[in-house]
C-alpha cells in the first residue's frame, strides 16, 4: 500500500464514520488534491464536504478553526506546509491556545495536514521542515508519519483527536509502498499519539528519525550492520508530544545517540532530544550525542547543493561510526 493510498483511505473512512468531518483546501475537490491525496472524495462526499477554496490560506484556515470551535471536525489541507506560513496565526493563536484561554470550554478538533519538508529542486521557499516550529507550541500535537501504517493510523488518530493536530506528510514518500498488516487495514485501526516505534532493534547506537529520515536511518543501520555495528532505529512518529521514555530507554541500552532530521539544526527536534537525553540519561552516555540536520541555510536550488543541504545516509553512517569508534578507547580506558 502506498502512503498516498493510506492517507486517502484514512480520510475516506473517517469522513464516512463521522459526518462532522470535512476536508477543505486548495485543489482538494475537482483537481482531486494537488498530490491526489483526496482522490475520489469529492465524488463520494460531495462539494459540501470536500471544499475547494480560493488561494487564501489565512482566510480558509481561519474558517476551518471557526468551524472547529463550533462543533465540526475540519481537516484543512495545505498544498504544502510552506504555505501554512500564511496562516500560522490561525494555527498558533486561534487553534492552539483556545482551549487554554477558554479554560476548557472551547476545544478545537482540527487537523492541519499536507506535505512538509524538502521535496526535489523546488527551491528555498518550497523546501522546509516545520516539525520543530509547530512542536514548540503548546496546545498543538505534531505528527510525522513515515510508512503507510503510520500514515493510516496516525491520520485516523488525528481526525478523532479533540485537539488541533499538525500532520506533516512528505511529498517524496507519497508514492512509496510499504507492507501493511491486516490489522492496520481495519477501519477501527488507530495509532497512539505520542508513542514512538522501534523500527529496528539494536544494541550499539540509537538513531532517532522521523518522516523520510526513518528510511535513511534504516538504510544506514543496514550498512552499519555489515561493519559490525548494531543500530537501533526509532521512528518518532510524534514530535509533540515527544516519546522521551522510549528514546531514553533505548539510549540507556545502547549508550550512544544519533538524531536525524531534515530541518534546520538550531532549536530543532534533535536539540530537544539531546536535551532530554542529557537531562535524563547523562550518566549512560558513552559518547557525545551526534546531531544530524539540514544545513543551516535556505534550501539552494542547484541539485548538487541541495543534496549537500539535507542529511544523507552516509552522514548517518559516519556519525554512528564516530560515536562508536570514539567510544572504544574511552571504554578501554575505563
Amino acid at each position, binding site marked *: 500500500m502506498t502512503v498516498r493510498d493510506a492517507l486517502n483511505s484514512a480520510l475516506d473512512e473517517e469522513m464516512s464514520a463521522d459526518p462532522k468531518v470535512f476536508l477543505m483546501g*486548495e485543489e482538494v475537490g475537482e483537481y482531486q488534491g494537488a498530490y491526489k491525496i483526496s482522490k475520489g472524495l469529492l465524488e463520494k462526499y460531495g462539494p459540501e464536504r470536500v471544499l475547494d477554496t480560493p488561494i487564501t490560506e489565512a482566510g480558509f484556515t481561519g474558517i476551518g478553526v471557526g468551524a472547529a470551535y463550533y462543533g465540526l471536525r475540519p481537516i484543512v489541507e495545505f498544498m504544502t506546509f510552506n504555505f501554512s506560513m500564511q496562516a500560522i496565526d490561525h494555527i498558533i493563536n486561534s487553534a492552539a491556545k483556545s482551549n487554554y484561554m477558554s479554560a476548557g470550554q472551547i476545544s478545537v478538533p482540527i487537523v492541519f495536514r499536507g506535505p512538509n519538508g524538502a521535496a526535489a529542486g523546488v*527551491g528555498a521557499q518550497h523546501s522546509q521542515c516545520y516539525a520543530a516550529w509547530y512542536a514548540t507550541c503548546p496546545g498543538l500535537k505534531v505528527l510525522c508519519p513515515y510508512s503507510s501504517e503510520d500514515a493510516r493510523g496516525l491520520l485516523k488518530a488525528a481526525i478523532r483527536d479533540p485537539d488541533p493536530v499538525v500532520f506533516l506528510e512528505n511529498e517524496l514518500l507519497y508514492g512509496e509502498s510499504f507492507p501493511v498488516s491486516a490489522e492496520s487495514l481495519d477501519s477501527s485501526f488507530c495509532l497512539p499519539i505520542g508513542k514512538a516505534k522501534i523500527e529496528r532493534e539494536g544494541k550499539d547506537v540509537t538513531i532517532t528519525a522521523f518522516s523520510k529520515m526513518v528510511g535513511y536511518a534504516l538504510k544506514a543501520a543496514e550498512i552499519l550492520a555489515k561493519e559490525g555495528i548494531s543500530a537501533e532505529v526509532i521512528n518518532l512518529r510524534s514530535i509533540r508530544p515527544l516519546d522521551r521514555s522510549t528514546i531514553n530507554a533505548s539510549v540507556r541500552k545502547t549508550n550512544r545517540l544519533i538524531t536525524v532530521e531534515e530541518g534546520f539544526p538550531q532549536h530543532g527536534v534533535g536539540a530537544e532530544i539531546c536535551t532530554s537525553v542529557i537531562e535524563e540519561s547523562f550518566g549512560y552516555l558513552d559518547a557525545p550525542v551526534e546531531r544530524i540536520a539540514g544545513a*543551516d541555510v535556505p534550501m539552494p536550488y542547484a541539485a548538487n*547543493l541541495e543534496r*549537500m543541504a539535507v542529511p544523507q545516509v552516509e552522514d548517518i553512517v559516519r556519525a554512528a561510526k564516530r560515536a562508536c569508534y570514539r567510544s572504544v578507547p574511552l571504554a578501554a580506558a575505563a
Partner: protein
Amino acid sequence: MSFTSTTKFVQPLPLNTTSARSNDHKPFLDPFKPTSFFGSTNKLRFTSLAKSHQANLHRRSAVVAVSEVVKEKKPKSSTNLLITKDEGLVLYEDMILGRAFEDMCAQMYYRGKMFGFVHLYNGQEAVSTGFIKLLKKEDSVVSTYRDHVHALSKGVPARAVMSELFGKTTGCCRGQGGSMHMFSKEHNVLGGFAFIGEGIPVATGAAFTSKYRREVLQEADCDHVTVAFFGDGTCNNGQFFECLNMAALWKLPIVFVVENNLWAIGMSHLRATSDPEIWKKGPAFGMPGVHVDGMDVLKVRDVAKEAIGRARRGEGPTLVECETYRFRGHSLADPDELRDPAEKARYAARDPVTALKKYMIENNLSSEAELKAIEKKIDEVVEEAVEFADESPHPGRSQLLENVFADPKGFGIGPDGRYRCEDPKFTEGTAHV
C-alpha cells in the same frame, strides 16, 4: 443597462478578429452569467444569486478614458497607427523571445536539464511586453512564480535566466534561486515570489521607496515606478486588498497588473471569486480600475502607458486587469485536465504573437522577411543561452554557505571563540555552522 458606452472593452483592433469579446454589446458585468464572462466555459454551480451590481460602473476613471481614446485611434490609415515601426519591432522581438524561451524551457525540463516547478508564460506575452517595454531601467518589476518572461522583458539576458534554470553558477541568482525566484538588482527585477500574493507587499514597498526618496530624501528626479504582476487567483488573497488600500492611501507610484488567465491551477476564476470583475476593486479603494484585452499587446500598451504615466506623475496607483490565457498547464507538472479544449482553442486562435505579426504586416509596418529575421535571431539567442547554461559550471561547494547573510559574521562565533567566517573551512564550504 447600457454597456455599449461604458464597457472597458473598446473596439477590437484588426489584429483581434477572432476575439471572443468582439461582441461589444454583450453585457459582461453580470458575474452570474458564466458563459458570457471572458472566454471561459466553466459553469458556476450556483445559478440564481444576487442581481447584477454595477454600482461602480459610473465611477469612471481617467485611465478608463484612455481606453476610449484607443477606440478612437482605430487604425485604418497608416498615418494613424498605434505604434511606429521601431516600436513594433521591439515589441515583436520581446514577445518572440518570451515564447521561444519558454518553449525551450519545456524541452529542457523534459530532458532533465531543469527541475522542480517550472511555470511557463506562453499565451500571456502581450502583458509582459505591453507593460515592461515602457519601463525605464530604474523602474522595478515584481513577479510571481511565472517569472522568466518578466525578467527577460526587463532586460535580464536569456543566458542568465536559462543558466539559473539549469542550476548553474552563471545563472542570474547563481543557481540559488531557481525557476520561481528570479532576481536581478541591475535590472530592478525584485523577484519572483512563489506564494500567492506574497509579491504584492514587496512591490508596494518598492513603490513606497520611490516616493520616500523623492519626498523625504529630496531626490526630486526620482520618479521610478513599480509594476506588480500577479494572477486572478491572487485577487482573492488578503494581501492584495491590504496593498491596494495602502498604495491608494499613500498615492504610491505602482501599477497592479492582474494577469487574469481565468484559471488558478485547476480552480476556475468563476468558481473562486464572488465578483469576477477584478478591475472593479480599484475604484473600491479609490484608484482607477481598467479592464483590457490581455491578448492584444497594443491595447495593453496603451493602458499601460497611461497607468505608468499616472504613477510617474505622482498621481497614484492603478489596477489593471488584463484578460489573458495560458497556453500550457499551470506548470510543466500539471496534466491540465480541467480546462475545456474548446476554451483553449478559442484563446489559441487569439495568439498575441500571431496577432501582432498580422497587424505589423497588414499595416505595412514590417515585412514577413523582416519578422522572420527576428525569429531567427531569437532562435539563435535561445540556442546560445542553452549552450551557455549547459557548459557553465555547477556551483562550487563553497557556495553552499555563501549569501545567507550580507555580513558573513552573521554566522556567529564558533566554539573556538572566533567568527565562523574566519575559519578557513568556511570558505571551503566544509565548516560546521
